């Protein structure tokens, strides 16, 4: 009996099994339901239905609006923070970075519950500002996912490039706009992807903060509660297609400069 040896390939078996069981198989079931009707016959009706129904289209629009606003707010908050952090000479830098990561260790529904109380104190009545609350809740939830990739790119920037820019006569603003900002694009793109996509579907935040309008995630739930598995599956599939498209678009920007600390 020789010693037991693992080829590299066999190390991949557990993951392959996982992949087939929990990713590929459910996806096939999803596709099956999306393209059949209640009687199991093949149909495009669900697909056509999605793009002709003012409610589903409106929900898509609303989801994108919530996600885009959240992403923009996150970016505006995260970039200066990450920039200052990365440039500071503080010894305790890693501690400060830690304070941004730490909320992620606390259960998210607990954090939103706390946020609900804080917002009630500030706003008086939460239900007056459903859209604003959704954006605040999501920003609170996803901000670290925007800060970290940007911070990682900026902190790894080659300082000599900036020195060269200054030597060639650029002032601080020009150096930032022409060197730092373009070189941190991969981090920004990665951050956008990390925030925008989950924000389209994270309806728990809306539910908990009393926004009564459906976004994509809750719409799928609504269809399933109404026993319309076929319509729900089609919406899930369309969402998947949107995510794929988005990922392809952002990947182009990331590959351009791949030395950043992109997380995706």
């Amino acid at each position, binding site marked *: 009996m020789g010693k037991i040896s693992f080829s590299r390939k066999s190390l991949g078996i557990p993951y392959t099994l996982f992949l087939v069981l929990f990713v590929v198989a459910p996806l096939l079931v999803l596709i099956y339901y999306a393209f059949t009707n209640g009687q199991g016959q093949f149909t495009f009706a669900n697909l056509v239905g999605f793009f002709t129904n*003012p*409610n*589903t*289209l*409106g*929900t898509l*629009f*609303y989801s994108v*609006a919530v996600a*885009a606003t959240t992403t923009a707010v996150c970016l505006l908050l995260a970039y200066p923070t990450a920039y200052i952090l990365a440039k500071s000479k503080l010894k305790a830098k890693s501690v400060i970075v830690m304070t941004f990561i730490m909320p992620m260790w606390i259960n998210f529904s607990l954090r939103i519950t706390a946020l609900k109380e804080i917002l*009630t104190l500030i706003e008086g*009545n*939460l*239900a*007056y500002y459903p859209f604003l609350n959704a954006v605040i809740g999501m920003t609170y939830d996803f901000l670290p996912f925007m800060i970290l990739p940007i911070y990682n790119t900026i902190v790894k920037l080659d300082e000599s490039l900036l020195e060269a820019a200054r030597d060639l006569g650029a002032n601080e603003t020009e150096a930032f706009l022409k060197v730092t900002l373009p070189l941190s694009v991969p981090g920004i793109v990665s951050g956008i992807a990390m925030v925008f996509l989950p924000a389209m579907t994270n309806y728990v935040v809306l539910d*908990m903060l*009393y926004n*009564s*309008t*459906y976004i994509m995630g*809750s*719409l799928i739930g*609504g*269809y*399933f*509660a*109404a*026993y*319309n598995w076929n319509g729900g599956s089609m919406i899930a599939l369309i969402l998947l297609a949107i995510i794929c498209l988005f990922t392809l*678009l952002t990947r182009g*920007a990331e590959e*351009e400069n791949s030395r950043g600390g992109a997380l995706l």
Partner: protein
Amino acid sequence: MRKKGIYRAAVMALSSILLCTGLPSFAASGEETPEVTLRVCNWEEYIDLGDWDEEETIDLESGDIIGENSMVEDFEAWYEETYGIKVHVEYSTFGTNEDLYNMLTLGDVYDLVCPSEYMIMKLMAEDKLEPLSEDFFDETDENNYYINGVSPYIRSIFEENEIEGEAWAKYAAGYMWGITGIVYNPELVTKEDASSWNILNDPAYYRQVTIKDNVRDSYFAALGALKSDLLTSEEFLQDPDYSKNLEAEMNDTSPETIALVQEYLQDVKKNAYSFETDSGKADMVTGKVAANYQWSGDAVYTMDQADEDDFTLAFAVPEESTNIYFDGWVMLKSGIGEDAAKQHAAEAFINFNSRPDNVIRNMYYIGYTSVISGGEDERIFEYADWCYGAEEDEEEVEDYNISYFFTDEEDSEDYVITAPAEQVDRQLSAQYPSREAIERSSIMVYFNNEQNEAINQMWISVRCYNINDVPVWAWILTVCAIALVAVFGVRNAKRRG
């Protein structure tokens, strides 16, 4: 749907772990006793899980009642003692009727489940249920606690209501029941306002009232509000066929009505605090909202919680109509099959939960009202009196007659609770609705597929954002954003090329 706080949840999680690890090993004892496995699926936190504190003892004059073990464990012990057969209960839970239905569709197998009346009707119509046996209705068997103890009022409802020519009673044994109404803060809301479904859409309570986040409850409330004038008119109330007419009005699914309901609920969405399933109770107790559309069992719980904080809440039943609902035990064909031993155990489980002391334990634990009135056994009325009866030194008292529930004698005065006057607008009226509230109650039937589809579509339309509502500035902004991304992309591509 029915929650009793984090403490209960923790106890439940723990006990379910214990239940799992405590699986009996098959025939390990070497004895010859046959074993039956009973798969029960019930609402979350909808049965006594035991482990009460000593001080929680219910000290009725007829004896103390306390839940030491979970009801399921007690049943297993009782069944073996009574029938000499070992039974093992696999107890699991579901969150909504729709979840249960989806679980069954996906192939989960249970013997005994406890859905609400409309889901029972759906399962009946789809021929998925096993009828209760004749023995179950044998009143001479003293172990048949259900048939000997069920309230005559509830019994007649279960016998008179039919779907496709078959009475509910053939398949279903009631468990808990209740009505819908409005829990309100009397300092902010008048009783008159809370006694109409119109409160949901009342601009005076802008963003201060919550409504249920499910299509059936919302639909019922909307019908009540839209038909308010008709339903409260003398002519309608005096009609000899009042009950029948009321039920027809409250189950109206004509396309015109659905369109009106959609419009109404869209207004409610703009006016109400939120659509909620569970958070409404806490928001009511913490004072975030002034009124709350609630199921009576949860209303009792909400008022109890508020009382602990010395915060007074009240309960009103809308004048137009109230939705009376039932949760009942039904046996599934897919689980029971032809297995007579299993069916016997399932029916015994229903009977054990209908034994008056167990009824009291369950009611105390979950806050809802059992369909069992006890028959010869007076303990359930005694418990109601123990909960809500006035102390001897109480100054303002009022007699509250709930004989309709406990006896079938007309105009009986045998079951009257002398309660503190304020209780008549509070827990007591939610635990045992008044005769008047019951008279204007309506069942909401199971809608057929076509009606369901129309109503569900209406509901999704209410909850969705309509693309036609997108304001012009938002479209302009969208176009700008897309243009910006495009320009950025093209510039990048050029630089790369």
